[in-house]
């Protein structure tokens, strides 16, 4: 988000925070912006508007398999992630949900011996292709983890952390980014008077929202949430779920949950995963959430969502 050149800084103060706070404004036209075209690549034509976005998923796994050494943990998953929608991944434990979601920003790379087969397209670009910058992918596809993992720094420094990676920016601008991110993660009112205090002193739910603020501060395009509420109490869970509804106005969100009610409550589309006989996880059904939970096609999905399954 911070930038090297001074001209870009002007761009930020003009279009960045200011606009986010004031709502719509002087936006560069997507249709004509050369930058937009450059980033949209060949798969997503420069003329892509909302209609195109509806057709073209933000992310799409294509016959994706994930291996740990010789063991195949996830097999042949083809899953579209639509923009400004929440995609839930559900299934019994051990079915590869976490492995799948962690492959969407290549977090699995950190595990020795893990590798992927197939493709994961982000705006029509395979993130596993050679020459792809993993660090850049992780910035575009942010992640929130099972347990809140704030850094043992101040609340302010946690949110500013990702932004500062890209260079020094004026304090006023950074203040704006921190405030905006905290507002968007519905944490601002609770912490605005203690930004300099340690993030470790926050409650679990607050910590998780702080992690969300930290993730959105770098303006990602997709947010991955790996069981974000599993360590939280019901009240904190409710807040996170409300927050997800707000965030999906701006982002494509993928959430892994083993709580089916949560999937039913928050998501727009749902992928159902199961473990095969060879212990590889496969996606057995993908559909609108409403359909998955009311009239699934697969008997196993029906059993699972109706609680007849271990």
């Amino acid at each position: 988000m911070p930038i090297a050149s001074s001209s870009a800084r002007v761009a930020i103060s003009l279009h960045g925070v200011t606009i986010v706070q004031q709502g719509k404004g002087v936006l560069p036209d997507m249709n004509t912006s050369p930058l937009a075209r450059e980033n949209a690549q060949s798969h997503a034509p420069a003329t892509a508007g909302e209609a195109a976005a509806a057709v073209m998923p933000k992310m799409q796994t294509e016959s994706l398999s994930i291996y740990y050494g010789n063991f195949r943990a996830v097999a042949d998953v083809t899953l579209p992630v639509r923009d400004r929608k929440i995609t839930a991944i559900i299934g019994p434990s051990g079915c590869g949900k976490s492995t799948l979601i962690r492959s969407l920003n290549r977090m699995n790379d950190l595990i020795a011996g893990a590798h992927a087969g197939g493709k994961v397209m982000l705006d029509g670009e395979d993130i596993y292709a050679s020459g792809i910058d993993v660090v850049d992918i992780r910035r575009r596809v942010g992640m929130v983890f099972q347990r809140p993992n704030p850094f043992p720094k101040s609340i302010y420094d946690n949110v500013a952390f990702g932004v500062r990676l890209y260079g020094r920016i004026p304090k006023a601008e950074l203040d704006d980014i921190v405030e905006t991110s905290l507002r968007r993660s519905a944490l601002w009112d609770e912490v605005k008077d203690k930004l300099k205090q340690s993030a470790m002193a926050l409650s679990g739910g607050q910590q998780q929202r702080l992690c969300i603020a930290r993730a959105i501060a770098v303006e990602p395009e997709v947010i991955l949430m790996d069981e974000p509420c599993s360590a939280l109490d019901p009240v904190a869970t409710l807040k996170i779920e409300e927050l997800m509804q707000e965030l999906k106005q701006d982002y494509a969100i993928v959430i892994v949950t083993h709580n089916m009610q949560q999937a039913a409550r928050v998501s727009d589309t749902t992928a159902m995963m199961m473990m095969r006989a060879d212990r590889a996880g496969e996606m057995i059904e993908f559909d609108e959430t409403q359909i998955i939970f009311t009239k699934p096609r697969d008997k196993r999905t029906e059993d699972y969502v109706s609680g007849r399954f271990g």
Partner: protein
Amino acid sequence: MVVTKPLSTKLPTPLVRRMFQHGDVPFKIIIVLATLFTLALVVGVGVMLWLFTSVTRMDLGFSFVTSKTWNPTGSQFGALPFVVGTLITSILALIISVPLGVGIAIFLAELCPARLRAPLGVMVELLAAVPSVVFGLWGIFVFVPTVVKPLGNFLKNAFGTSGDVIDLPLFHGPFYGFSYLAAGAILAVMVLPTIAAISRDVLLAVPGSQREGAFGIGCTRWEAIWQVVLPYGLSGILGAVILGLGRALGETMAVTMVIGNVAQLSGSLLSPGYTMASVIANEWGESSTPAYASALLEIGLLLFIMSVLLNLLARLLVWSVQRRNPQQHA
């Protein structure tokens, strides 16, 4: 402990015989005695050294550590040159070994392939197993002539008296190889494994979720290590550095063999000197008077006090990290 009681009530035997048969009471007494003995040793070191240094403590008091004249034949005992020598060599050792040691810890804990981690770790630890006197031998005949001398001469020419680059008092005076520089450099090698091994353990105890968090917002590997993992384990690494310092302060043989052994107060790294430990080792055989022996013992007492304080500090720091994530420390 409770379980044994019913058994003995079922078999009523005379007390002595019962104790002989089961032996639990003597056993408990013995293990408590062994424990007390261990504890007594620690206290004993301080007490005995305190008692045996009364001569110089009474006569000189605090001026023992502030006086810079060490002239045993004239009964002048000022330990300042040795305190300063210890500080110079130890700090020099840390300046060299801390960046290297932390670098090694990072490599072993964060980067190196899992199957290389154990063998490389063992090799680093083996360096710590090399006896001080062997370091000293190697120092005298190999390290000082081939590494320290050229390095010292370079420093002298570049920064010494009317040096080519800049004139620094740190590199003044004549240079013969055996010097603070030699002692500090060999100490750096000796404390390196301590700092590296403990820092590695500290880094391995940093929860993986911290790394995930860093990678998750687009950190490069180095940024994740430098800005997240290291700060998280900072107090533990500080503890490792302090333990390294503790080892450097008390290291005797290798230092005695390469430092040149001259009782003078000098601010130049190139001049020969003494550390507290090396003056004791080197002059012990000559300590003919009670005051001389007492003075050397008092230097030992100072070493004892410094060592206890440093250990206390280091353990507190290392514990503070391990306590923060006990589940990670397996």
